[in-house]
């Protein structure tokens, strides 16, 4: 498994910002600017099944003095060697991540779901609309500052989460 990460590091020097292994799961952290290069390399290396795409919210987190609120988390599976690789892309609130729809059709709904529940935008997504909640839903439900009881979704009182990042889309 380390082989793949070594290979990525050799092919694209400096792209792997951070890496760790826990309970046999390999994780690499990649900056969003160079994310697509990594994706293309992974695809060539046989990681062709994008198993999962999700995000994690760390509201207070800062990296190098800049607030970086979200991790967009991708899980790839190599069907030939049965290796799994987790790729994390840190993004700040309001920043967009490159969309993978043109490369992986699975990404379509997964990205819509992440947009719906976290409010992270995906650049280049053909149809970035809410998936699970309705169009006018206030806020993004899986953000840590969204109230557990949902506030009052119909009049938006008591909801502290930003209303669709200030946009009505």
């Amino acid at each position, binding site marked *: 498994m380390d082989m793949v990460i070594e290979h990525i590091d050799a092919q694209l020097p400096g792209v792997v910002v951070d890496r760790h292994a826990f*309970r046999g799961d390999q994780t690499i952290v990649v900056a969003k600017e160079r994310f697509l290069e990594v994706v293309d390399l992974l695809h060539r290396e046989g990681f062709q099944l994008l198993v*999962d795409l999700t995000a994690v919210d760390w509201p207070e987190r800062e990296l190098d003095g800049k607030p970086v609120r979200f991790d967009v988390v991708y899980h790839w599976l190599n*069907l030939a060697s049965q290796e799994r690789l987790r790729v994390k892309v840190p993004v700040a609130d309001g920043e967009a991540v490159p969309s993978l729809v043109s490369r992986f059709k*699975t990404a379509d709904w997964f990205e819509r*779901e992440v947009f719906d529940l976290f409010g992270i935008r995906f650049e280049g997504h053909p149809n970035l609309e*809410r998936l699970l909640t309705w169009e006018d839903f206030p806020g993004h*439900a899986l953000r840590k500052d969204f109230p*557990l009881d949902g506030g009052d979704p119909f009049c938006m009182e008591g909801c502290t989460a930003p209303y669709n990042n200030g946009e009505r889309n």
Partner: protein
Amino acid sequence: MESIALSRQQLDGDRMIVNMGPSHPTTHGTLHIVLELEGETIVKASPRMGYLHRGVEKLGENLSYQQFIPLTDRLNYCSSIMNNVGYACAVEKLLGIEIPRRAQQIRVLVSEIARIADHIVCVGVNAVDIGAFTAFLYLFKQRETAYDLFEMAAGQRLHTSFTRIGGLFRDIPEAFVPLAERFLVECEAAVDECERLLTHNPIWYNRTKGVGAITAEEAINWGYTGPCLRAAGVPQDLRKAQPYLGYETYDFDVPVGTTGDVFDRYLVRVEEMRQSLRIIRQVLDRLEPGPIIVDDYKVALPPKEKVYTRMESLIHHFKLIMHGMEMPVGEVYSATEAANGELGFYLVSDGGKNPYRIRVRPPCLPIYSSFDTQVKGCLIADAVAVLGAMNVIAGELDR
């Protein structure tokens, strides 16, 4: 989201908008599909989802690891025990613990019964949707036995909550094994009967052959897993590829299709039922007495008699209920082969009592996302067949 109301252009053309669902007998659960038709040919199908969205992942962040188990019942409610097993495996991976052998065997046993029950629903209801009612009745008799077995094991038929972190809620009762033996014989006969009713039936063949065909590359690109991926010719089964719960010690085959159409998906599911029966046979043969939950009171509750008589056990009980388990800081992704495909749980722990983030990777969401391309150019009746063969379960899709 484009409006359901007809636009000017749609009114001018010959296109017709038909709402399938959200309450329609062939939409399994609350699925809503807006079909755009030209005559009876589907030009576009836009699935709308979220009618059953309960925010399971959000709730999970506010519940302890143990408390999340009942919510997993409500994901794929046709085979809830498999979700229990998948979730428990994920937390055990996070904890880095191994569960006792008997617990593993019983988990495999109930998982395979659940797989059969799930495939019965899928194949049977798919046939009903297309118009073949008989096979459904023969199969559903076996599903009743499967649910009787669940009731014996867990005390519940549907929402089983059978597993605990580190093992099982309780051991299977004595009457379980004889009934399972009977189930093996009768289910085998019922599957044969179903095959005699459907496999060589020209109407079934014509209605399903070539409908929803997909190539292996396309299926992988769409993120297919489980029977739908195998029907497309990819022999990917996590029980073989990345064995868990000792699946590597069981002898079974992975059926694979060629074209990925509804007929192949049906054949794969029928054969998987037979293979599951083979696994159940092997489990019953090797089932040996032993503990069913780990002997670590930092993870699993001590037995009640000890709690009532010993101070130490009482303290453990209290600590576990009030403060939860001591979780390591880290993140794991654990996947099991559920009836629909790869059911994954991604857990992020910050060391607290509750998971920091809990993500359920539903197997039917990527499969269902390809629905539009699958039915484009087909008739409505074909869309019904494709929908049935995808085995979309709304509880799992919407979470």
